[in-house]
């Protein structure tokens, strides 16, 4: 209802809480819609097109043909296999190493702060810089790895570590783990700090050994942080691009051509936006499926009363 003032004009009423909330959030929502939702939706639309910038006149709507073609696309299937293996190796190494590092950093000892800072340092490094650093370390002529192993007497001659398929794959995975490990450590460290010390005291009274305390107390309490680590690291490993691109370019052969690398190559080098967008949506779908799987497996198990 519009109230009238003394001069008889309608007086403006302040907005209600709901309207205010919408009004205040609207700019952010518009920005998000323009910068995030629209490109995502548009990329799906592009994935339904034959759309290669080299042949603009051949552009047309082809429905799900790009997706159907993936089933017989040798490059895609090979990259998918490499990516799956890459995720397994990176995830396995990350979880084990992050858990060990978090357990160590959770203890009180002199120099803990320094070690914590050092452990977090790789996280601050951009993927490209990480790739360049490891390329220098793995260099066949002047690399630090060759120098170290040679001085330790492990090898007689310098090796070209990235020239065999297996070597390139493992060293690339190692470089990726080094870059993303700190993030997992932080999450697990945060999880460890929430475990009540009484539980350890009780376990000690019950004569539980270190392994039993880890299995019966630490691990169940870490299931939720582990879930986050698994989801985020799977996404990271599946989308890994910059480190691999700089380190091996995807070679030798197809040994390190992951699906993300293939996607970037398809879009930016081959300028095939239709197929490249289809690749991107497949990556998204796979990561989503894996994440849902993780949640189904781990979420309930970690949900218990103290």
């Amino acid at each position: 209802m519009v109230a009238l003032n003394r001069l008889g004009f309608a007086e403006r009423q302040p907005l209600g809480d709901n309207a205010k909330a919408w009004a205040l959030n609207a700019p952010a929502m518009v920005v998000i819609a323009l910068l995030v939702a629209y490109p995502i939706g548009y990329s799906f639309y592009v994935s339904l097109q034959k759309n290669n910038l080299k042949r603009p006149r051949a552009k047309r709507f082809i429905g799900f043909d790009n997706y159907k073609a993936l089933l017989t696309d040798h490059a895609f299937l090979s990259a998918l296999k490499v990516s799956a293996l890459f995720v397994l190796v990176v995830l396995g190494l990350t979880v084990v190493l992050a858990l060990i590092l978090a357990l160590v950093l959770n203890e009180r000892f002199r120099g803990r702060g320094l070690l914590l800072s050092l452990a977090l340092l790789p996280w601050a490094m951009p993927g490209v810089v990480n790739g360049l650093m490891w390329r220098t370390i793995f260099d066949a002529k002047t690399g630090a790895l060759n120098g170290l192993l040679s001085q330790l007497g492990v090898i007689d001659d310098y090796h070209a570590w990235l020239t065999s398929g297996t070597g390139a794959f493992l060293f690339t995975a190692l470089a990726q783990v080094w870059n993303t490990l700190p993030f997992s450590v932080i999450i697990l460290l945060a999880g460890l700090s929430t475990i009540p010390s009484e539980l350890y005291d009780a376990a000690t009274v019950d004569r539980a050994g270190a392994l039993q305390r880890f299995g019966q107390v630490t691990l169940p309490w870490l299931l939720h942080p582990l879930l986050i680590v698994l989801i985020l690291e799977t996404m990271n490993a599946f989308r890994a691009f910059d480190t691999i691109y700089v380190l091996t370019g995807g070679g030798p052969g197809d040994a390190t051509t992951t699906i993300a690398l293939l996607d970037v190559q398809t879009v930016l080098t081959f300028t095939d936006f239709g197929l490249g967008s289809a690749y991107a949506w497949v990556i998204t779908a796979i990561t989503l499926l894996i994440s849902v799987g993780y949640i189904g497996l781990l979420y309930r198990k970690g949900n218990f009363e103290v």
Partner: protein
Amino acid sequence: MELTRRHILKLTGLGLTAPALLAACSNDSSSGSGSGDGSVKFEGWDYEAELVQQNLDRFTTTSNIKVNYTPITSAQYVQKVVAEFTGGGGADALYVYDDSLAAWVDGEYLQPLDGLPGVDEVYAAIYPGNAEAMTYQGKRYGLPYYTDANCLTYNTGILTKAGITKPPASLEELEAQALKIKNAGLLEYPIGLPAQLSDTWWSWVWALVFGSGGNLFDDQQNPIMNTSDTVTKDVFAWLQQAANKSKVIDPASLQLLPVPIDNAMKANRYAYTIGARYASRDYNDPAKSKAAGKIRMALVPSLDGKEHATVSNTRMYGLAKDTDVKDDAFKLLTYLGGYDEKKQPYTAKFWFLQRGLGFAYKAMGSDPEITASLKKFADPVVYQHLAEIAKPRNVLGVPWYTEFETEMHKVVQGVLSNQTQPSAAVDSLAQTVETLKKKYS
């Protein structure tokens, strides 16, 4: 302060005005081309941008035509130009790679130069290989920026120490010489090749095939590497043998990009490599190279020891199809890639003298100033001869070329690392071509 509808309307109005203000502040390119002030919008990759600007300033002074120059990072040049033209805001004149030409013509970004003043004269004066690379479907689309041909680059210091007096003419001879260097304990791996996967073409593979008189494709762009032309297979067999049997090709090549190879040549760590003539200028620069004065170039060794050909690339200046300032843009193109009022290719000469960029004009080879400069890093006769026998890849006009090139890198890596046999490699390449043809049909 209470938030009223009036406030909301004011803020909304401001929000709607902001993009318009931002758009007004940005460079006006909505008309499809031109800078809006009558100047010529010119784009190129960011090689020596300051020198480019310096040369453009000279053009503006002499012609009174303003040029709005934008250097674009090399790694993203093709993508950015495509994005600009797709969005309707391309340049009036621009650099064009020979392997982008067909796509950009088909995309209707460029217009032919046939019939424009001086174009026939330029095409008559340049090497046929460069003219071929700038021609698509019978029409001429570019004036030459620079060109280069591949050669065998060798270190005379290392060869002399091994008792070798002349460069190899055949691949067999190259392997034998490299083995001699290896056995003399001078270098463990005398030959280095840039064989890490990358987005750039592997000119040395084409040079080896052309160098032995072969080709991967016939004139209709059908693959012949696994049928009528056995040169590619034989070249692959030689590569495999040299990498895995005699072990004269460095296995680390698979993790080396062109720059590390250049650095290794400059540090006397390789006796031979195959690459562009241009690199010899740096290799022989005492300020940059320990091998300065020792690096020479020769024809690419062949399977039979006879002289055949080599591969060339051409970078050119193109004219946008929808330019609003065609006359001025073409004047700029002529200044950059054609003849000046004294009938001299001023800019081509400028680039050679400044940075040693290869030239497409045949007559420049006998210019005393050019020859004097050339002698500092190469034998002018060999340099010129390479230009004369160089030819472009005959698949630059097909839309699937980039995909094929990328796949070829992987196959050659397989050959070098002994994972793929030469016959399987050429079969695989032919199969790739068939798949790509279907994809683009």
